């Protein structure tokens, strides 16, 4: 029973599990707090804030997948890493394809200024 989680491949043998939980927890706390503070203080231009917040989320994703879900390149967890990568590919297609179509559609359906003026005139002026 001592090494049950390692025996069934839920935990990699090479990992110091207690240490990885502690490190993962500390890093996740810091990243969450940093992202929150940046937004609350509103100290950066909008574009930079978005970059910082998204960057912190991606970092925290990697930290939690590695430290909490114990997914790494270790042979016992490699097949779960493959499954995760394949899900990542599916999500990339799903997300980028949907956003591309929907925002392109929004752009095509937005009237330009001459159409807008024409419409307002037809409706009886400004």
């Amino acid at each position, binding site marked *: *029973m*001592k*090494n*049950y*989680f390692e*025996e*069934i*491949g*839920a935990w990699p043998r090479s990992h110091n*599990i*207690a240490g990885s*939980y502690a490190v*993962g*927890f500390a890093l*996740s*706390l810091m990243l*969450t707090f940093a*992202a*929150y503070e940046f*937004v*609350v203080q509103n100290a950066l231009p*909008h574009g930079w*804030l*978005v970059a910082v*917040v*998204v960057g*912190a*989320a991606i970092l*925290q*994703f990697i930290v*939690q*997948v590695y430290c*909490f*879900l114990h997914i790494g390149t270790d042979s016992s967890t490699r*097949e*779960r890493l493959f*499954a*995760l990568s*394949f*899900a990542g590919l*599916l*999500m990339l297609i*799903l*997300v980028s394809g*949907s*956003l591309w179509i*929907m*925002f392109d559609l*929004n752009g095509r359906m937005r009237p330009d200024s001459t159409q807008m003026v024409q419409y307002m005139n037809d409706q009886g002026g400004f």
Partner: protein
Amino acid sequence: MTDEFDRSGILSVDEKSKDSTIVFGFWMYLMTDLVLFASLFVVFVVLRGPEYGGASIKNTFDLQYVFIETIALLVSSFTCGLALLFAREGNVRGTVSWLLATFVLGAAFVAMEVSEFSRLLAQGLAPARDGFLSGYFTLVGTHGAHVTVGLLWLLAMVVAIAGRGLSRGNMRKLALFAMFWHFLDVIWIFIFTIVYLMGVL
């Protein structure tokens, strides 16, 4: 089978291969769930624009409230890991204590979310009002429903461990539950970032 495992502490090759197959199968379920959440995120992002009423809710978010919610779920993810560390040492008392701590934090998270939802509904900000609110309630509500199911699972597991100790079956449940619970915290990182932090930017 269980008794033999408890006495010797050694898994047979068959048992090992069966349990690791179950772990992988559960992971495949989580991957399909991940794709489900990805599609809900897309729906939310598409419907967040001002033409779908996105501006209606921006000022009603209380970021500090959501931050506390986020920390509660993150700490519960950590205490869940502690429960497994105690289980590996064969410490039933430690395992059950940390599972109960996980339950309390998870229940606090769900309670805060339910109270936030009812606050919005009381202001007339219901899912049927506009596209933004439909996307918001579907995405955040689906995550909340998962956490609620996790809480029920957690209680059932505490009862099972109190009854039969850290048997092979209970250890396997712990391994699967921990994956589920950590997975939900990973999803929440993106809800916190995309819905709330980027929602007020």
